[in-house]
């Protein structure tokens, strides 16, 4: 809900929005790197590289963010991305399956891994961090083993058909990946899910207090499985989009998505313990993270030290988000007639 017809938009009201911190942070890092990075960063090359990176990590961050709002983590996304892209390319190259079926196969792999994660998390008391690290290694091993068994090497080259390339892998103006548009679609769908449909309420309740949510009649098991399947699907979608963009699939790809997606979500103000967060925040967090990531490259800073900046960014973001959340609660308590 971005509008409040009763209250109107005031400065105080804006400050009480949990995303306000993320927005201020994004503007600050953009101005900083615009000054450091110069014309290239402000121009199309900078914008496209930020958006290209944002679109891929952003698609995963949205559904990982939903899981985190529901109080769970998903580390397995890092191995779902290569599992999906290799499924697509092995099916298309080694088995001669048509592109569309190969792509559906890749997405099905993501849904299946998500289903397994969801069942394990909802049926056991093992923390989801451990379960999804387990499935991550399992899937990584399977991907490596099967790829070598079937293809004889750890990478597969693929020449996709024109239609598949246009839908999932084309470069608009030779610079902007079509995945940016897909990111927009994911943002719209997940915004609807979390903030418009009644299901969003269930997700917040699940992350806020699982016992109370179950007592209120929410099917917590099914909801958890559904959210993990969404996260598996999103990671698989990025896998498909990568193999269609780069015409190749690598077994080792994808590991960076694990921590990058979590960082985007946390910078975007999602509470690590669940129960609070927003799609707008996750999008802002993703952009902030990618601006810094690409800004380091464009500004000519020694990339060896880039990780220090990213680490600092994460800590500062979490601290300011906590501050803003406390402010929102205080304002809520103070608004009395």
């Amino acid at each position, binding site marked *: 809900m971005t509008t409040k017809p009763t209250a109107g938009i005031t400065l105080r009201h804006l400050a009480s929005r949990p995303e306000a911190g993320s927005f201020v942070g994004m503007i600050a890092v953009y101005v900083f790197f615009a000054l450091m990075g110069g014309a290239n960063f402000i121009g199309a090359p900078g914008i496209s590289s930020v958006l290209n990176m944002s679109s891929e990590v952003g698609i995963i961050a949205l559904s990982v963010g939903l899981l985190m709002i529901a109080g769970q983590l998903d580390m397995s996304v890092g191995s779902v991305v290569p599992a999906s892209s290799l499924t697509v390319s092995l099916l298309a190259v080694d088995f001669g399956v048509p592109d569309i079926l190969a792509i559906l196969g890749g997405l099905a792999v993501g849904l299946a891994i998500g289903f397994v994660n969801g069942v394990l998390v909802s049926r056991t008391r093992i923390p989801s961090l451990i379960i999804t690290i387990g499935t991550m290694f399992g899937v990584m091993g399977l991907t490596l083993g099967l790829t070598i068994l079937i293809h004889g090497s750890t990478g597969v080259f693929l020449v996709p058909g024109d239609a598949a390339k246009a839908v999932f892998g084309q470069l608009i103006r030779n610079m902007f990946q079509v995945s940016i548009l897909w990111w927009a679609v994911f943002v719209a769908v997940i915004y609807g899910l979390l903030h418009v449909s009644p299901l969003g309420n269930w997700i*917040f*309740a699940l992350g806020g207090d699982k016992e109370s949510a179950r007592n209120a009649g929410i099917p917590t098991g099914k909801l958890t499985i559904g959210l993990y399947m969404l996260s598996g699907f999103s990671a698989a979608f990025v896998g498909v989009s990568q193999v269609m963009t780069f015409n190749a699939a690598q077994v080792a790809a994808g590991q960076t998505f694990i921590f990058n997606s979590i960082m985007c979500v946390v910078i975007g103000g999602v509470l690590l313990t669940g129960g609070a967060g927003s799609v707008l925040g996750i999008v802002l967090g993703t952009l902030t993270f990618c601006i810094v990531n690409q800004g380091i490259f464009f500004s000519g800073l020694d990339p060896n030290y880039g990780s220090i900046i990213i680490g600092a960014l994460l800590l500062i973001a979490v601290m300011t988000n906590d501050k803003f959340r406390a402010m929102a609660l205080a304002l*809520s308590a103070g608004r*009395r*007639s």
Partner: protein
Amino acid sequence: MSDKAPILALRGVNKSFGPIDVLHDINIEVRAGEVLCLLGDNGAGKSTLIKLMSGVHQPTSGKIEMDGAVVALPTPRAASEKGIATVHQFGGTFPLMSIGRSFFVGVEPTKGWGPFKVYDRKTANEIAVKAVQDFGITRIDDGDRLVGGLSGGERQSLAIARAVHFGARVLILDEPTAALGVKQAAHVLRIVNEAKRRGLAVIFITHQVMHAMAVGDHFAVLIRGAIAADFKKGERTREEITDLMAGGETMAGLEASIEGYMADHAGHPPPAV
């Protein structure tokens, strides 16, 4: 009391977890428009008793009756569908959700159709605010406020108003005033009286005698998993109840008599007096 059948009654209920007996031969009943105060020290079995009544645990033996008929409460959901609502010490609500959203959690009002069903925030907020204001909490006037911004008493009131709105007939309040200041507690006691006036059966669990005396019609004191005393309003003075609760002479005497009885009767506790 009246001669109506009790809404909820426990008849000879025992509960053990493996070899450990937690509750022995519990007989309690509560009628519409009546407040039953369940008093007892920590470890007396109060929370196990609540869990039996709210469908979390099943009795090892004995019967739970509603309106005179034996019922099974296999899940918390089943209990709430039968009209038994449990409100826990901290209100069981979601601090970072809005009042409207947490009021309707699990039963969200929607508008639109098919896959385009939209959570109806305006209706949810209006109904939630009205339900709470009807209970006399007029300070809550904006359904968008976060639950975490409410005081402890307001949170309890919100939870009670929610239970009543969704058709609860039996309200189980688990130490609702334990974590509250004097003023906030008075607030909650007023809400309890209002629930009673509306004809709900209230089971009020507490160890604060003053609070129990303020609202209770009927009192049961739980010691070591057995009902050690069962009396109506006016039958005991505040001092006597306090003495029972605080483990003074009377308490010690009762315990000794229970233990003596149990020793003579193969470990069975005495029937309620």
